[in-house]
C-alpha cells in the first residue's frame, strides 16, 4: 500500500443543525507529520469540524478519508484518530497509569498485562509524568492532567490527533510551557496534530500551517507568516486581532469610508470590501491636518503596557476603536492626552484592501 501524502482529507463535508449551517462544503487535506492549528471564534464550527473528523458526529454530506481510507461510515475508534478533549475527560475513578493504559486494556483484543505496563511506562516518560503513575487523577495539577489526556491517546498510536482547545483549561503561565511541550512531543512521534483554538496567538505560535474557519467554511489555510501578513478575507484579518478593519467601498485607487478616502497600492479579491491596516503600522501624529497619504482623525482613549510594546486605543467617528501598537524597540513610549484629537497615519503600501 502506498501511503498517501495526506493524513486526512475532507471532501465537500457539510453539516447542518436545523437552520444553522455548522460546516459549509469543507474541502481540506492535511499532510502527514505536520502541526496544524484551526483558528476561529467560538460558535464558528471548530468543534463540530473536529468531532466530525473524529467520528462523534456524522456529516450530512461529503466524504472523510483518513490514511487514504474512506472512514465516513466507521465509528470513532476504528478511524485511528486520537482525541484530546477540552476538559481532558479523564476517568475520575482511575489512577494516572490506568487512565493511560485504558485504550490498551479495553480495546477489542486487549493487550497483555506486561505489555500494558511497559508501554504505559514508556509513555509516562515521554510526556514527563514520572512518579505520578499511582496517583488518582483528582490529585494532580492542570498541566499534569493535560499530559495524561495526551498520553492516554498517544498510547493507542494514532497517526492523527485532534486536540479541542487543549490549553483552554490551563492558566496563562502553564499554557506557554505546554505549547512548547506539545510541539516537542509531536515532533518526537512524527504524528499529525490538529489543534483547535480560539486564540490567534496560540494558532500562530503552534501551527506549521493554520486553518482559519469562518462561519463553517475555510477562509484560509496557509503557513502562519502568510496568514498573518496576507489575510485572505476581511474576517481573517479581524480574527487575527492585529488589524484595524474599516468597512467601505473601493473606488479606483482609494477606499471610501466614513472617515474619509484611504489610499492603497494593492488589492486582494474578496466578496466583501474592507480596508485593513496592521496595529503596528499605524503612526500617531499630533498634527491634525489631513496631509499626504491615508489617515484617520481620532481621539486618544487609553493605553495598555505589554512589556515589549504598548497598545494605544483611539476612538474615531461613531465610536470606532482604532488600535495602535508601538514596539518599544522603536523608541520610548509616547504619552497622549485623552480627549485630544490626533491624526493616525500609515503608508498606503501597508494597507490590505479587499474588494
Amino acid at each position, binding site marked *: 500500500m502506498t501511503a498517501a501524502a495526506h493524513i486526512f482529507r475532507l471532501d465537500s463535508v457539510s453539516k447542518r443543525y436545523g437552520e444553522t449551517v455548522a460546516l459549509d462544503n469543507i474541502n481540506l487535506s492535511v499532510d502527514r507529520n505536520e502541526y496544524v492549528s484551526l483558528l476561529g471564534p467560538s460558535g464558528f464550527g471548530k468543534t463540530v469540524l473536529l468531532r466530525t473528523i473524529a467520528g*462523534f458526529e456524522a456529516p450530512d454530506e461529503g466524504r472523510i478519508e483518513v490514511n487514504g481510507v474512506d472512514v465516513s461510515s466507521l465509528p470513532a*475508534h476504528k478511524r485511528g*484518530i486520537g*482525541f484530546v478533549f477540552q476538559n481532558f475527560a479523564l476517568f475520575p*475513578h482511575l489512577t494516572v497509569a490506568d487512565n493511560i493504559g*485504558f485504550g490498551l486494556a479495553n480495546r477489542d483484543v486487549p493487550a497483555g498485562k506486561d505489555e500494558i505496563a511497559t508501554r504505559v511506562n514508556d509513555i509516562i516518560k515521554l510526556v514527563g509524568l514520572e512518579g505520578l503513575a499511582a496517583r488518582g487523577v483528582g490529585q494532580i495539577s492542570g498541566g499534569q492532567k493535560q499530559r495524561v489526556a495526551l498520553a492516554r491517546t498517544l498510547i493507542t498510536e494514532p497517526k492523527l490527533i485532534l486536540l479541542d482547545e487543549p490549553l483552554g483549561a490551563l492558566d496563562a503561565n502553564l499554557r506557554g510551557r505546554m505549547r512548547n511541550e506539545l510541539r516537542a512531543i509531536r515532533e518526537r512521534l512524527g504524528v499529525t496534530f490538529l489543534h483547535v483554538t480560539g486564540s490567534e496567538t496560540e494558532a500562530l505560535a503552534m501551527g506549521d500551517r493554520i486553518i482559519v474557519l469562518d462561519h463553517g467554511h475555510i477562509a484560509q489555510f496557509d503557513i502562519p507568516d502568510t496568514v498573518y501578513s496576507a489575510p485572505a478575507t476581511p474576517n481573517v484579518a479581524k480574527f487575527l486581532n492585529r488589524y484595524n478593519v474599516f468597512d467601505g467601498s473601493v473606488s479606483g485607487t482609494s477606499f471610501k469610508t466614513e472617515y474619509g478616502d484611504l489610499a492603497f497600492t494593492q488589492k486582494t479579491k474578496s466578496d466583501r470590501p474592507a480596508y485593513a491596516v496592521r496595529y503596528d503600522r499605524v503612526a500617531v501624529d499630533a498634527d491634525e491636518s489631513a496631509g499626504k497619504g491615508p489617515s484617520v482623525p481620532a481621539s486618544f482613549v487609553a493605553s495598555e503596557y505589554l512589556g515589549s510594546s504598548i497598545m494605544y486605543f483611539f476612538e474615531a467617528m461613531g465610536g470606532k476603536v482604532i488600535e495602535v501598537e508601538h514596539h518599544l524597540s522603536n523608541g520610548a513610549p509616547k504619552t497622549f492626552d485623552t480627549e485630544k484629537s490626533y491624526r493616525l497615519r500609515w503608508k498606503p503600501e501597508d494597507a490590505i484592501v479587499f474588494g
Partner: protein
Amino acid sequence: MAVPAKTSSSTAWLLIAPGVLWMTLFLVIPIAMIVYVSFWTQTTFKIEPTLTLASWQQFFGSDTYLTSLWTTVRIWLIVLAATLVIGYPTALYVGLFVKSKTLSTILLVVCVIPFWTSFLIRVLAWRPMLGKEGAINIVLQYFGIVDHPIEALLFTELSVIIGMTQIYCVFMVGPIAFMLGRIDPNIIEASRDLGAGFWRIFRKIIFPLSLPGVVVGAIFVSVMVLGEFATASALSGRKVNLLGNIIVTQVGSLKWALASVVGVILTIIMGIVVSLFLRVVDLRREL
C-alpha cells in the same frame, strides 16, 4: 474583619446545638430506652424495671422468632436484588440514555407518581391485581397462557416480594439516575474513542462511577424493607411474619420487653448493613 478563634468556635457550637438537641431527644434517648426496656421483667399483666435476660432468652429459644429473623433477612436480600435488577436499567435509561434534561426529569417524576396515593392503598392495590380472580390471572387466562388461575400469586411470600419491589424500586432508581446524570458525556466518548466497546465502557467506566448511587439506593431500600410490616401483613395473609410484624403484635398485646428485644435486633442488623454498604464506597468523597 478577622473573627477571633473563640467566637468562631462558640458559633460552631451554637450552629450544631439544635441538631444535637433534636438527635438526642428523638434518637439517642429512645434507642437507649428500647435497649433498657428489653431487659425489663415482663409478666402477663405488667412490666417492671427489674433487669433480666428472660425476653432475650425467649427470642433466641423460639423457632418461630428465629424463623421470622431468617424470613426478614431472606426477603430483604431478594427485594434488594430485585430492585437493583429492575432499577439499574431504568436508571441507566433515565439518567444516561435520555439526552434531554427535561425528559429525564419528567421520567423521574413519573416514577414518583405512585407516591401521590397513600402507602396502604398502594399495598392493597396489589390484591385485585394478584388475586385468584385478579387482573393478572384474568389476562393470563384470556390469552390462554394458563388454564387455571395461578393461586401462588397472592397471600404468599411471592406477593410480598412483588409488592415491596414495586414500592421501593424508585428509591433505587433515584440515586443511581442522579449519579449517572453527573457523568461527563466526554468521558464516555473518550473511552469509545480509545476502542472500548459498550460492555467494557459499562463495566470499567459507567458502573464504577454510578456505584455511590447504588450504595445510597441500597441503603434506602434495606432500611425500609428491614423495618417493613404492612406489606407483609396485607399481601401474605399473615403467613409471612417479618421482625416488624412481631413488634406490631407484641406491642399490640403490651409485651413491651419482647418488642424491645426485636427492635434492638433489627437496629443492630440495620447498623451492620449500612456500615457494610458504606465500606464499599467513600460517600463523602464521591458526593
